[in-house]
């Protein structure tokens, strides 16, 4: 669900903080690309005895272009734990347990991330078992069908949330061609059909689980030279041959669209989802939108004061955009006390967006946001996981961890004019999808 509070949205934003690096991260990012395309990123960090080991695969639900195969990137993430001829799933689990790491994986629109954090002295073993499964994954039909049930179980537990239901509908309505039309979980009918897609799963592995799509990130109590040597030793023999999915281009939206979940006994919800930009670490669009969302939707914003503190019509207010490889949604969300206030609330928000198009933001407010970004970042890079996750989030959109440094440098440059520019460009009725939850048959918002 793309309902990010401004605080969370901005927690990774920074400016230059420290001597010793040219960028904004106060630690050097070492990169070495293996000849097969695997990029190896190492960030030594003072966490005695502990290190985080991440593998970022640039494959996600965005790559699910075939009809009936939605949710497959996520399903495949599950299959990656089902063993190889060299290391069975039982043995893999036994090794993982002996390492004593916190290990898991997750999938989203543009990527799948595999991670383990634990004893830095056991890092070579982590390289060994991960390289084996990324190159040699092999699973039985029984394992395949059994894992499909676990994915259905995941869908089942998520579906209890009306927000999840609305998210699925909103994306389905907002996009016509592009694969962001479906969520990473996929459509339920496709999830139910997963047990019948064994052959497709093999082709999925062959096409996407290739070194060209992989970046290894190691952060913590490690030495760069040692990490790079292990990467070459264990991942250097991985054969290339990645196939790029033909992602359809989304046609321009021509009118306001609507998505609705009918739900009694639940707080009414209003979402305004505008078509936004793709991530780009050289353009001002996304950083300017981030700054604007902080000004308009954070707890110190005028809208928050009006809707939540003074009038007390709403329980919560959120707004922002996820970084993604292709143009995605900028979503504003309000949880309301009374569905009768939906239209008025929408009008108030639209008025604030319209004002942002023509009225320069106060220079002190802009300076405060930039200061907030700087110190938020500084406060949050306090563990190997936090740094690895931060780097990974830029690797999956551009392939380059230095995007983090480049992107944060843009924040310092965001001007009043940039903010007005993005407001005019993106907050338009023909790019809007209105999503609602209420007990009515429709949201009743124009």
């Amino acid at each position, binding site marked *: 669900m793309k309902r990010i509070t401004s605080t969370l949205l901005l927690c990774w934003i920074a400016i230059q903080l420290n001597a010793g690096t040219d960028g904004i991260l106060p630690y050097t990012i070492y990169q070495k690309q293996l000849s097969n395309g695997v990029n190896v990123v190492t960030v030594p960090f003072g*966490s005695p*005895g*502990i290190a985080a080991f991440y593998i970022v695969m640039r494959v996600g639900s965005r790559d699910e272009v075939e009809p009936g195969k939605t949710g497959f990137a996520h399903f495949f993430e599950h299959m990656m*734990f089902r063993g190889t001829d060299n290391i069975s799933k039982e043995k893999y*689990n*036994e090794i*993982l*347990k*002996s*390492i*004593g*790491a*916190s290990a*898991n994986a997750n999938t989203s629109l543009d990527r799948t991330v595999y991670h383990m*954090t*634990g*004893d830095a002295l056991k890092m070579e073993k982590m390289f060994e078992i991960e390289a084996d499964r990324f190159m040699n994954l092999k699973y*039985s039909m*029984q394992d395949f*069908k*059994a*894992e499909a*049930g*676990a994915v*259905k*179980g*995941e*869908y*089942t*537990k998520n*579906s*209890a*949330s*009306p927000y999840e239901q609305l998210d699925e509908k909103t994306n389905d309505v907002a996009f016509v061609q592009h694969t962001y039309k479906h969520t990473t979980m996929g459509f339920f009918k496709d999830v*139910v059909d997963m*047990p019948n897609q064994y052959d497709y799963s093999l082709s999925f592995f062959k096409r996407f689980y290739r070194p060209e799509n992989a970046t290894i990130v190691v952060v913590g109590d490690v030495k760069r030279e040692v990490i790079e040597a292990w990467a070459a030793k264990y991942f250097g023999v991985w054969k290339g041959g990645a196939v790029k999915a033909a992602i359809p281009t989304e046609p321009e939206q021509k009118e306001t669209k609507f998505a609705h979940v009918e*739900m009694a*006994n*639940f707080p009414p919800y209003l979402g305004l989802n505008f078509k936004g930009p793709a991530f780009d670490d050289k353009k001002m669009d996304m950083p300017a939108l981030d700054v604007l969302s902080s000004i308009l939707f*954070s*707890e*110190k914003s005028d809208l928050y*004061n009006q809707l*939540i*503190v*003074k009038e*007390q019509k709403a*329980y919560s207010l959120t707004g922002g955009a996820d970084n993604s490889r292709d143009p995605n949604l900028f979503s504003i969300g309000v949880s309301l006390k009374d569905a009768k206030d939906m239209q008025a609330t929408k009008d108030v928000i639209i008025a604030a967006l319209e004002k942002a198009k023509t009225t320069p933001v106060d220079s002190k407010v802009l*300076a*405060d*946001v930039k200061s*907030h*970004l700087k*110190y938020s970042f*500084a*406060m949050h890079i*306090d*563990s190997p*996981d*936090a740094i690895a996750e931060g780097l990974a989030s830029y690797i999956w959109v551009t392939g380059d961890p230095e995007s983090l440094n480049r992107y944060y440098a843009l924040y310092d440059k965001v001007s009043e004019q940039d903010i007005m520019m993005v407001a005019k460009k993106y907050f338009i009725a023909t790019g809007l999808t209105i999503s609602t939850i209420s007990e009515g048959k429709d949201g009743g918002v124009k």
Partner: protein
Amino acid sequence: MRRIIIASAAILIAFTTILNAQTVIELKQPESNKVIIKIMFRAGSAFDGKGSEGITFTTAHLMEEGGTTGMTSSQIKDKIYPWAASYFVTVDKEVTVFTFEVPTVFLNDFYPIMKGLILAPSFSLEDFERIKANQQNYVDQVIRSSSDEEYSKKALEHFLFQGGSYQHPVQGKSKTVKDFTLENVKACYKENFCKENMTIGIAGNYTPEFLSQLKKDMRTLQPDVEPKAFTLVKGAAPKGIQVEVIAKENALGSAIFAGFPMALTRKSDDFAALMVANSFLGEHRKSYSLLYRKIREQRSMNYGDYTYIEWYDNGGSNMLPRPGFPRTQNYFSIWLRPVQTAKGLKGQYPELSGIKVGHAHFALRMAIRELDKMIKDGMSEQDFELTRTFLRSYIKLYTQTPEKQLGFLLDSKFYGRKDYIKEMDVLLAKLSVADVNAAIRKYWQTQDMYVSIITDISEVEELGKSLEQNLPSPMSYSNSLKEVLGKEILAEDEQVSKYPLNIKFVTMFNTKDTFR
């Protein structure tokens, strides 16, 4: 000093906890760029009192989200925003913890605000109404309709601690929250938030002078108030297995939590032994634990299956445990993530059109049978060694950030320990498999427990009947899956489907009737 007494209906099992009001836990990190301050109060929902369920939560959140006598909440947000200073509060059964985090360079600017929030909250009517409305919304609607898993967990606590101080959710109940007034909040603050029941924690880069000032100021928090002696009433012990099945409309699965009270906390050295057993049976979100392998990995029934020997906050979102939830009353629990209902299975697979009950009964049987087997057979030396090795490394990951480190140190103090993580490691190193198996037999059993199941309205009656009458619950696989499953799995299923559960009664009711 606060006297805390644990009582059951007939017997008062008492112990006295003496808290030094100026207990300070320090974690100095001169190289850090920030300071973290935690103020823990020995005050939580267990002390709310009858008719006031949820008042501690309201009070703590009004302190956190409201203003001070010098500044409104909006003014505070404006002021601290450029510094990226932040704070939050957690309220549990027995403690409330305020956590403040600020860059060192702004510590002196931020401190008057922090001090004001604790010592001089404004308790404005406007803030109170906002906080109360949010809380009312949660207990009226959100709790029942966001995550069936969290709902079933809260339902289990409500069932397991019935008649006891832990029974109600920390957020309270619909009818109690509705009647709260600002005067109730002020009274709760006066009774429960004072220097006598406060523990201070501080981590990061601060000066001795700052700490002296903090201690001096915190000593002024209602210095004349002597916390009442609270009686913590235990819930009624389960007699047999007691099940509640709660009906929801359009639930896609059956969310299950089961558990029984257990006289063991981190205070006891036995905790390390039971950590090993629990990790083997159902370590939180780990694919190598027994229940996960049996129910999810082999049988494809759900997303995961875990067990716990203490409260684990928000397990759906957290991979590692959060500090701030220490308790004197504890319970063992089994979490089975939603399994399929008959309605769902029939819709997905024509070959299952004749089934009346989904997978909930079978899953419950399987989990309790595995627990039973562990009690009877114990752990093997090999499993013990591997699990102990895992835990000795894994528990160090609980404290990766300074905030977590400080939090676990505060929790350690609650349990009469200095550093729980380090001490558990020492205890784990000394353990033998015999110690673990003795702990299993001492603390675990399968005959008396509570079970809460949230499920679709279409499932309730047949599932309730199946449980109540101990009917066989054959596993219903799709043909596609069944044809590839090994014979040993199907043979074990046959055993599981008839495994007798000591179910004494089953109650069924509608979601609308919970937490009222």
